[in-house]
């Protein structure tokens, strides 16, 4: 299918589709060492047809579309004294990936990192990233990677919107379920996103509360809407998502009597004080009394709170309350 000139002439008549125009525009702006004026672009790139106004509008839209693909079009002037005639070009070094020196083993890690997204919401971004890296002509070295298969399960389209918003630094708004299940409107400059314990989170500056807040995606009760323009805020340089997702240090200690063999999750998180035949006495770190009570209540008569006394009193109250409510 390598072509002769008459085939070529046959072909050019059909060049009008937008995707081809975008590719040809990219080639023209990328291949030039000088600035190209609009009229030069309209002459060189197929597909700019119709009235001057229509061509202009088409060109403006195309520029926006390329920008959304991450292709930066530079605008410049031929002569600093005359600014009326501007020119356009794409710098090869801003178009081209500057990732060099990726080893075969690193590519295998990326391979694994992208495969995690299979079937999940960033699937297509992950695949296109991998494709680009493979185009650098590196072979992966899969044998170097141990057999692990972490998985991501997020089909929530809101997550893709959040990633776009963070990437473009755009404000988002959504409806959020409060602890009492009322709905609240939230407007946020999203700073970061992540996952922990099977839940997904977004953190950012809550514009009404004027403070950084963390939101769980499954408590967002609406489709997330993007607001305003791109690059409308700056993510503070000291922001780190990991600090927002880190579990706070458990500063309180409870002494518990646990029936041997039971409640192993609690025992494993504790220090054993007395390893008895029927009961094991442990020191269990906790953060809030309400969490301690709920952990211990779950285990019914398999755990007794020895200390703190206040928690011991509260658990008796709670149990009495449960009995009274169910008699």
């Amino acid at each position, binding site marked *: 299918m390598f072509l002769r000139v008459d085939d070529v002439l046959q072909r050019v008549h059909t060049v009008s589709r937008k995707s081809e125009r*975008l590719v040809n525009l990219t080639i023209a702006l990328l291949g030039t060492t000088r600035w190209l004026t609009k009229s030069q672009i309209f002459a060189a790139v197929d597909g700019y047809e119709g009235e001057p106004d229509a061509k202009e509008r088409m060109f403006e839209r195309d520029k926006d579309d390329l920008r959304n693909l991450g292709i930066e079009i530079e605008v410049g002037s031929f002569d600093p004294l005359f600014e009326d005639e501007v020119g356009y070009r794409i710098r090869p070094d801003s178009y081209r990936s500057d990732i060099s020196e990726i080893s075969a083993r690193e590519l295998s890690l990326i391979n694994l990192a992208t495969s995690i997204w299979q079937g999940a919401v960033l699937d*297509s971004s992950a695949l296109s*990233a991998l494709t680009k890296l493979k185009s650098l002509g590196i072979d992966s070295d899969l044998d170097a990677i141990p057999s692990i298969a972490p998985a991501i399960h997020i089909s929530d389209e809101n997550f893709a919107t959040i990633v776009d918003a963070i990437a473009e630094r755009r404000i988002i708004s959504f409806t959020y379920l409060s602890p009492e299940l009322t709905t609240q409107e939230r407007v946020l400059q999203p700073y970061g996103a992540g996952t922990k314990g099977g839940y997904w989170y977004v953190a950012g500056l809550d514009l009404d509360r004027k403070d950084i807040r963390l939101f769980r995606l499954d408590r967002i009760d609406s489709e997330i809407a993007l607001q305003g323009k791109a690059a409308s805020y700056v993510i503070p340089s000291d922001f780190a998502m990991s600090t*927002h997702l880190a579990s706070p240090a458990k500063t309180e200690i409870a002494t518990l009597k646990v029936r041997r063999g039971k409640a192993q999750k609690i025992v494993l998180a504790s220090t054993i004080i007395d390893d008895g035949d029927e009961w094991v006495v442990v020191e269990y770190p906790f953060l809030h009394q309400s969490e301690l009570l709920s952990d211990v209540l779950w285990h019914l008569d398999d755990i007794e709170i020895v200390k703190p006394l206040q928690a011991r009193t509260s658990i*008796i109250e709670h149990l009495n309350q449960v009995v009274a409510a169910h008699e």
Partner: protein
Amino acid sequence: MSKKSTPTQKAARMLDLVPYISSHQGVSTTELAAQFGISVAELLSDLNSLWMCGDNRFDLIDLEFASGYVSIRNAETLNRVRNLSQQEIIAIVLGLDLISKDLPEERTDLQDDIQSLRTKLGKGIERVIDATPASDGEVLALIKQSIATGRKLKIEYLASLDGSITSRVVSPIDFYVSDNRDFLVAFCELADAQRTFRIDRIKNAILLELEATSTTSSASPDTRMKATVEIVTEKRRSRESLGKFVAGAGSEVEVSTYSLSWLARTVIASGGAMKVLAPSATRSEVASLATKALAIYR
């Protein structure tokens, strides 16, 4: 993937096809389509479009693909790998983060690789991303391997009800995801029956050199039971603790559950924030379990 791509997405793909084909001359159309996550028909449409592009109308890109194998010539201008988009970087960094927390501790070499990749790719994005996997990736890999090779697996399992740990030999049947959590369906020799295990509760797994007991994955009958629960306070927390199968928007909700004992404990653990209204047998079970728990304080 089934969604039809927009002209902009198609243009992006055409731009990325050029360097990929250039570095993989003679790649088959099926392999190329799979690499780009599209159907062969869509790939052929992309290639047909790309074939009409070039520096000018007399200097077009030379593409050969009629044979089912693709090669490219005369595409110097586009033969550059495009910069990764921020979305792409986020997807990779999230994935790398999960891997890093799953790697065996002794693989510090790979941890170093991940650290260097995060810096090379991240350009500041890596600090806005943080991911910790919900289940152990090594366990997941063993389960998949056991299903693929038809071998038995020995697991240490933390029971959800009483929190005891038991060692079980199981023949995995299936693996699925529900409500962001991983589950394993397997024939369990200890129970001598088919059981479902939550993978994040599997503390340890070893692949055995024993052939799995062949069991047909009979679709187990839906044995869910219904209960009515009143949510008194702490509405969001209470509702979330009842799991996924909750119907009703008000304070009285209908819960579907496989285990009424699980429901009884959930209600007791709420410490009075919830109340079982029906069935009455579960109501009295809650009362008697709570009375028994009170007895240890007397």
